[in-house]
């Protein structure tokens, strides 16, 4: 049963994911896959992946651990109570110190039992920042783990997008290969019939050229089929789908839908603000800074208030009222005290402080590295997008003209006024440029995905 504060923390851990998945609490449950569909959109696949991914759940477990540590740190402010209860044989002890006793220690007569309960309550009063430091470190630790969940989600989103576009690319390539081989098969079949019938104008060399080119085209079919099968298998795996289930995508082929992208400078700013890696180092810096304060607090005494109480009684022993007489088996008292605890050492604490400072500096170095590396990633993604857009434009024009060439070459061939060589060259140019155009579309879509990832907007974009 989680308390209110803990439940609040839990919501923060999965806030980015709760918007798009059915995982709404940090406590991982057995993966609840959404119902299977006939055709999946990219959003469906991402949603399913985030809802069922064991990697995400693993990260959420880490966040759960961090929350438990925070609970421990928060509880450090409250008093700690130690209660010890014992029961044992009680040697008889009658009489008083002043009046004497008929019983002797060296000849004990055990004819009863005693019960003793001792309680000690310690309330920290002032620790020179130790408790606050632990609490801050634990709080930032939760933020680090939350950011790790988001980082993993962003990684998975990018991976699923890559696979989705890879499958569409493979599907387009297969379609292109089939389109060209269908045309070639017709031409080959017609030429073979003409050769068999010894028709005028029929040429063996034409047949060889057509068959050679067909072989060239088919060579790439297996590779495209492999890409298609691997992407399909991987998508089903990530989406938590059984290989026996029906699996189709909502799209047949790639499209290059224009999309507004933040300018590179703003993108770099967003990345430094939103990237989960940056959230991790920011929280890590605060946490290690707090841990340095914790170690430094050990240079000073820690003040506390304590309450000590004892209740002990034995039926066969006379309770002593003389304050100087002490019978641990038959006594009761309570005392409130103020105190301090101070551990003095000759270098151990200083060493621990230096170690904590070094950890803090290590995180700072990571932050500096991230502040240089992340903008570079954003610039690279933007550069790749520009390249993809330029290639798209160039290949768009290229394949359309190659298609015109092919239409004209086919028309001329049909009329007997065109060469088979021209038809083959046109088909080859069309196939090559169309394939390049498909690759450019894939690169364009992946560049957009990379920009979203690099600027730290991948999870937010999916939540829209």
């Amino acid at each position, binding site marked *: 049963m989680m308390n209110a504060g803990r439940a609040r923390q839990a919501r923060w851990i999965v806030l980015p994911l709760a918007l798009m998945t059915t995982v709404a609490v940090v406590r991982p449950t057995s993966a609840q896959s959404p119902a299977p569909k006939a055709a999946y959109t990219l959003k469906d696949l991402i949603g399913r992946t985030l809802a069922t991914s064991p990697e995400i759940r693993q990260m959420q477990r880490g966040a759960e651990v961090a929350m438990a540590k925070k609970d421990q740190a928060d509880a450090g402010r409250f008093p700690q109570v130690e209660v010890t209860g014992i029961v044992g044989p009680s040697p008889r002890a009658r009489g008083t110190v002043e009046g004497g006793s008929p019983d002797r220690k060296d000849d004990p007569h055990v004819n009863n039992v005693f019960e003793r309960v001792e309680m000690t309550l310690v309330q920290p009063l002032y620790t020179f920042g130790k408790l606050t430091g632990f609490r801050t470190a634990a709080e930032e630790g939760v933020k680090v783990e939350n950011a790790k969940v988001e980082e993993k989600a962003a990684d998975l989103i990018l991976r699923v997008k890559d696979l989705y576009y890879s499958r569409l690319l493979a599907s387009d390539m297969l379609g292109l290969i089939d389109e060209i081989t269908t045309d070639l098969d017709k031409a080959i079949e017609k030429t073979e019939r003409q050769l068999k019938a*010894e028709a005028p104008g029929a040429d063996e060399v034409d047949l060889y050229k057509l068959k050679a080119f067909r072989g060239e085209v088919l060579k790439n079919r297996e590779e495209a089929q492999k890409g298609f099968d691997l992407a399909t298998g991987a998508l089903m795996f990530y989406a938590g789908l059984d290989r026996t289930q029906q699996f189709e995508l909502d799209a047949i082929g790639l499209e290059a839908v224009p999309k507004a992208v933040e300018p590179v400078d703003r993108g770099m700013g967003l990345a430094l603000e939103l990237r989960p890696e940056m959230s991790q180092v920011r929280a890590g810096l605060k946490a290690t800074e707090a841990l340095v304060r914790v170690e430094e607090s050990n240079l000073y005494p820690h003040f506390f208030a304590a309450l000590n109480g004892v209740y002990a009684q034995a039926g066969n022993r006379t309770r002593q009222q003389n304050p100087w007489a002490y019978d641990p088996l038959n006594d009761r008292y309570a005392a409130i005290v103020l105190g301090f605890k101070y551990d003095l050492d000759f270098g151990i604490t200083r060493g621990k402080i230096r170690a904590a400072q070094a950890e803090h500096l290590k995180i700072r170095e990571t932050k500096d590295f991230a502040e240089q590396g992340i903008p570079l990633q954003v610039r690279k993604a933007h550069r790749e997008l520009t390249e993809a857009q330029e290639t798209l434009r160039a290949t768009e024009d290229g394949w359309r003209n190659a298609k015109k060439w092919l239409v004209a070459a086919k028309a*001329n061939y049909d009329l007997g*006024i065109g060469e088979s060589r021209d038809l083959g060259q046109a088909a080859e140019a069309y196939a090559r440029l169309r394939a390049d155009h498909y690759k450019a579309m894939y690169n364009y879509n992946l560049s957009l995905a990379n920009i979203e990832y690099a600027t730290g907007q991948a999870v937010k974009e999916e939540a829209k």
Partner: protein
Amino acid sequence: MTAKNSDTGFRWKMLVIAGVTAAILWTPGQGFAGPATDQVKETVDQVLKILADPTLKSGQKTKERRAKLRKTVLERFDFSEMSKRSMGRYWSERTPEERENFVGLFTDLLERAYIDRVEGYTGEQILYLEETADGNYSEVRTKIVTKRNQEIPIQYRLQKADSSWEVYDIVIEGVSLVNNYRTQFSKIIRTSSYQELVKKMQAKVEGEETAELGTPKSKVR
């Protein structure tokens, strides 16, 4: 202010009415049909009907099916106009016999090519987009959408002959067949001769015919 407001309100109403009217009249992918579009569609539907006819699907029925397709195509395509336009300036240099012979060859080869293409039809979607008319000339823009959602734009250029519209050019993927043939014919006539062009086309027809029959011609030794 009030007058201005009511004027603005009236304009808004008119805009809404115009918008609703346009939405009712215009169906996406269909455009505004005209008489030329109707006739092209009628021919295309007729062709598809022949292709879908189960009684004409078997191998033995190929000849009968092709004859029906040829008849349907001939009714809509003006091959003599196509021939004339494809020959361009060389048309006037031809004798009536040469013209007749050329139209025959050209018709035969184009029919074969067209029928060959339509026989490869596998249920692609055909959309009639727009018709632009200019007196006796008209252009019907259509689009074939393949099963892979790829679009192949095809325009039919027609001219009026009595009450019917006849196709004299087809533009596939932006390539006008007439313009393409004109360039090719011109090149062959310039570099060789008109006779060489006819010889090439004749050879193609003979080759197609022989292949259809499937028997080698007896050679004179």
